[in-house]
């Protein structure tokens, strides 16, 4: 009897074989993005070659490449990169859990939402650049700790919002089901709320990792002596546009790498959402 209905659904595990030329397929998939990069590179090359006044602001691709090699071989780049990575990691470790905690509280407790909600939103409207110097002096001056706090603050809001939206999106019927099954609060959290909120949390985390990178640059703008942000500002100070651009590109690469890491984690964790291959 069940067979008659079953026909409308797909089988649970359709056979899946790895296609041949997987590498070529991936390349083909990435090709449009690579072409855009090539176009920008070409535009950049010809623009900087024709205008002498631009040379103080933008280095030629060749000069950037040269500086990159230089900074890499003498260890300067890796040194600053290490500092930035540490600051990003600390900022995320600080900002993400605290945002999740507060987001959960505001989502589940009307009183907390009424009391704290306006301040959370209001705080988001405060430009971090304006308060960063005050913050850094209050936190014992420029250094890894204070810069990490700036990074933590910048990821706080998107992470809190994603936690809030995720927890609020748990359907009322499923909550009722868990009540009917006498689930404990902890069981309700990790078997219902956490997995239901996961799509939203991963969205917030993707935004957060890239923002954390930006956060370290904001933090390093005020008296820091290490980090890619510092490298950018000090290069600009001595009119070395190539150094600025090497810093910018390294930051971009770092942000892309972090984003890709989260995206992979997301694909693994949310396999149930994707159609089976």
């Amino acid at each position, binding site marked *: 009897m069940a067979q008659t209905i079953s026909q409308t*659904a797909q089988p649970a*595990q359709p056979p899946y074989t790895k296609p041949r030329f997987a590498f070529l397929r991936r390349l083909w998939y990435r090709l449009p993005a690579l072409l855009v990069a090539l176009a920008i590179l070409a535009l950049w090359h010809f623009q900087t070659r024709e205008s002498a006044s631009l040379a103080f602001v933008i280095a030629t691709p060749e000069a950037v490449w040269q500086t990159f090699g230089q900074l890499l071989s003498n260890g300067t780049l890796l040194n600053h990169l290490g500092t930035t990575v540490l600051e990003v990691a600390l900022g995320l470790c600080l900002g993400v859990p605290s945002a999740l905690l507060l987001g959960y509280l505001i989502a589940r407790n009307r009183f907390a939402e009424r009391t704290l909600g306006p301040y959370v939103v209001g705080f988001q409207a405060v430009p971090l650049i304006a308060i960063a110097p005050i913050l850094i002096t209050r936190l014992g001056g420029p250094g890894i700790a204070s810069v990490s706090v700036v990074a933590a603050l910048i990821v706080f809001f998107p992470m809190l919002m994603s936690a809030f939206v995720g927890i609020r999106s748990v359907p009322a019927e499923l909550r009722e089901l868990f009540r009917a099954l006498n*689930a404990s609060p902890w069981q309700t959290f990790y078997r219902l709320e956490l997995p239901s909120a996961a799509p939203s949390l991963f969205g917030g985390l993707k935004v957060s990792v890239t923002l954390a990178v930006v956060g370290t640059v904001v933090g390093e703008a005020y008296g820091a002596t290490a980090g890619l942000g510092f490298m950018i500002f000090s290069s600009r100070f001595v009119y070395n546009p190539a150094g600025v651009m090497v810093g910018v590109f390294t930051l971009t690469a770092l942000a892309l790498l972090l984003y890709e890491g989260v995206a992979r984690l997301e694909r693994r964790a949310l396999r149930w959402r994707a159609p089976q291959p």
Partner: protein
Amino acid sequence: MLRLEGVWQRFGALEVLHNISFELAAGEFVCLIGPSGCGKTTLLRIAAGLLKPSAGQALFNGEPISAPLPEIGILFQQPTLLPYLSTRANVELPLALRGVSRAARRSIAQQALAQLGLAEFAEAYPSQLSGGMAQRAALGRALVQNPAVLLMDEPFSALDAMTRELMQLELLDLWQRTRKTILMVTHSITEAIFMADRVLVLTARPGRLSATLDVPLPRPRRLAMVHSPEFGALAAQLRSHINAPGL
């Protein structure tokens, strides 16, 4: 088995249920019918221990129901499956929440899935199931705790007509085999008479029990019975008890 004693329910100034008393005998199949908004779902939530009535009480084997009991299973209008769990894990959920060992719950769930014709979809996610299969999985989830009483809130109303008839027959078959006590809310006169030993009629707000109709049709029920004169007479009688226009 399951008894409601003078149950009243108010939500603020709104009176939803007005002095409801009835009892289900063990193994009985009872349908609760009434116009929409007459408090049928509220009544079921009280019987399930999900809602404390404003006055009166619900009793299971003479004991007041203050919280949901594993002996009382509930099936909602929607399948309410967790989208991130496989069908098997969904069916296992009540056992997992009670701390039943992995091996034990797997074998129980496997059996339930096989009974419901879902064995080959055990590893599929709910999004890959048809509406009928999803509701079947929800039924499996309600059955793994082996409840004595099954409360059903319009369980087939979201299904298409053909799937619905099929599920009705399967449920009757399951009931006949397991002799569970079933209280099913419906808004279909045909479904109520086709399924039940007894039909309770609830009036529009505030909901009160206006009539009880015994259904003396023989078991097992067959789809063709719907067209018999006895069935027609019972349907007419039931309709006359329900004083809501357009039902």
